[in-house]
């Protein structure tokens, strides 16, 4: 398309399709092609500008005289009839006494496209409105893709965690790994000793020095367990401050007594966390399974728990071997709800798992 020289009015329709030419008396002389779309059925020419638009900023305008006072400034206006889409504009006087009011949508662009059924040709070639629409749409698409990815990663993380056999904080095995190992050993008739260890005074560390200190103590505790056991032994963290050690083939109460003492001594080593010293201890309940007697992982855990309870009652920091006579000492109504004989996992929020 090649253009011949144009009269100013037509040139303005191309350069500023959303303009109005207004007489000194405030009557509309001409409306640009996009301006007309704001009120598709209106006459425009001959109407009074201030009856069509409501000017709100920089101040309310009632008369053309008031409008003249703010020529050249950024105006905020909206239609009196029709959608209340916010428009911005600027009015400038011409030599012949008329003035031009040029309009744009600014941030209400998206709304305006809907309200007035605008198309690409309604905007001046230099107007960034189309680029803005492009950008909004492109960013929405990109954002959706990112959100989908985030959801997917979160699900994958949750799935991995659900399948994990490792306790995240200490790197020890978790309850699921322990249950599986116990069941397998009982199935195969592999004799073992099982120690249920409950940390003493750990709650105080957590409460007085904070979760970070508590986590530090748990990590150190895991190291202590590793140091006191063989590579073939299973060390699991089964609750906030509860651990289980399974020692396959080790059935001598004397040897188990030595290991228990070593574990308690290690646990009682003071921990220095950022200059603050914390001390804990541990109570142990131990059960020995000879590989033949009828049992189950639940029963073994229950028996270890009974022995642990006896250690706690006897003043903590000690090891008790399970004996059926101990069963009588268990209070008829458990102080805490019990699940398959073992204490429920501690509140993860408290222990910072």
């Amino acid at each position: 398309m090649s253009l011949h020289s144009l009269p100013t009015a037509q040139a303005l329709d191309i350069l500023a399709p959303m303009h109005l030419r207004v007489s000194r008396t405030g009557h509309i002389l001409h409306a640009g092609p996009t301006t007309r779309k704001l009120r598709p059925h209106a006459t425009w020419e001959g109407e009074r500008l201030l009856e069509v638009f409501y000017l709100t900023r920089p101040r309310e305008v009632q008369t053309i005289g008031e409008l003249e006072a703010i020529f050249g400034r950024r105006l905020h206006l909206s239609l009196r009839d029709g959608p209340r889409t916010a428009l911005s504009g600027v009015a400038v006087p011409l030599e012949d006494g008329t003035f031009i009011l040029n309009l744009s949508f600014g941030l209400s662009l998206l709304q305006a496209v809907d309200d007035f059924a605008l198309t690409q040709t309604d905007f001046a070639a230099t107007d960034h409105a189309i680029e803005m629409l492009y950008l909004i749409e492109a960013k929405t698409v990109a954002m959706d893709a990112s959100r989908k990815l985030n959801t997917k990663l979160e699900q994958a993380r949750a799935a991995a965690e659900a399948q994990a056999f490792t306790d995240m904080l200490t790197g020890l095995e978790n309850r699921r790994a322990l249950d599986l190992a116990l069941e397998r050993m009982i199935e195969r008739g592999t004799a073992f000793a099982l120690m249920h260890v409950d940390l003493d005074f750990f709650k105080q560390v957590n409460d007085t020095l904070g979760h970070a200190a508590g986590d530090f103590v748990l990590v150190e505790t895991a190291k202590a367990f590793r140091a006191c056991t063989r590579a073939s032994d299973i060390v699991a963290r089964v609750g906030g401050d509860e651990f289980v050690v399974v020692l396959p083939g080790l059935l001598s109460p004397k040897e188990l007594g030595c290991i228990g003492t070593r574990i308690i001594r290690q646990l009682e080593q003071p921990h220095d966390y950022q200059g603050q010293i914390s001390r804990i201890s541990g109570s142990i309940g131990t059960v020995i399974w000879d590989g033949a007697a009828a049992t189950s992982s639940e029963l073994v855990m229950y028996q270890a728990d009974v022995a642990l309870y006896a250690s706690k009652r006897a003043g903590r920091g000690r090891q008790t071997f399970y004996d059926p006579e101990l069963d009588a000492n268990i209070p008829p109504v458990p102080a805490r709800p019990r699940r398959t004989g073992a204490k429920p996992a501690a509140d993860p929020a408290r222990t910072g798992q």
Partner: protein
Amino acid sequence: MHGLVLSAVQVFTKDLYGPVRWARVMDRAGMGEREFEPMFFYSKAVGHRVLEELSVELNMPLDDILEDIGTYLVSRPNMEPVRRLLRFGGVTFDDFLHSLDDLPGRAKLAVPDLLLPEIRLREHSVQRFSLTCRGDFPGFGHVLVGILRTMADDYGALALVNHGGSGAGTEIVSIELLEPRFAQGRDFQLRAMVP
């Protein structure tokens, strides 16, 4: 190679040839059971291996596959966002052609790490144009051929688009615009229909 590019290849293959064949391509390319993620970044080697294996699997020259991918990108309902974003480039096919110079810049605005080859449009006459693309993306010219042929239909223009050969990291696409307003073309609203 940007995950957006590779996941486009993935969607194309799974959609038109089935997930089994795509799984075979990924497996042979050493990707195992993985899927491409649009917002990840993959090595160039991975991209090339996958495209090579795709060509073997489909028993088609890679250039033809790339052209089909270009067509797919702008013609399928599931790829509507791509067509829409391209349509923002101009009101007529002619405008659109001229907007292609800005395509890498536009893509970068949307996804900052998506680097498309540099594209230069030359207007030899009112009817004859050529596009030169230069960049680290051999075969992009063929993708462009598929895109441009389909977009010409989209705009209702009658145009002949052909790959004009390649060399030294550049590819040429020639366009002959026979009739800008040949048919009605497809509708384009500034605002996408929000479901």
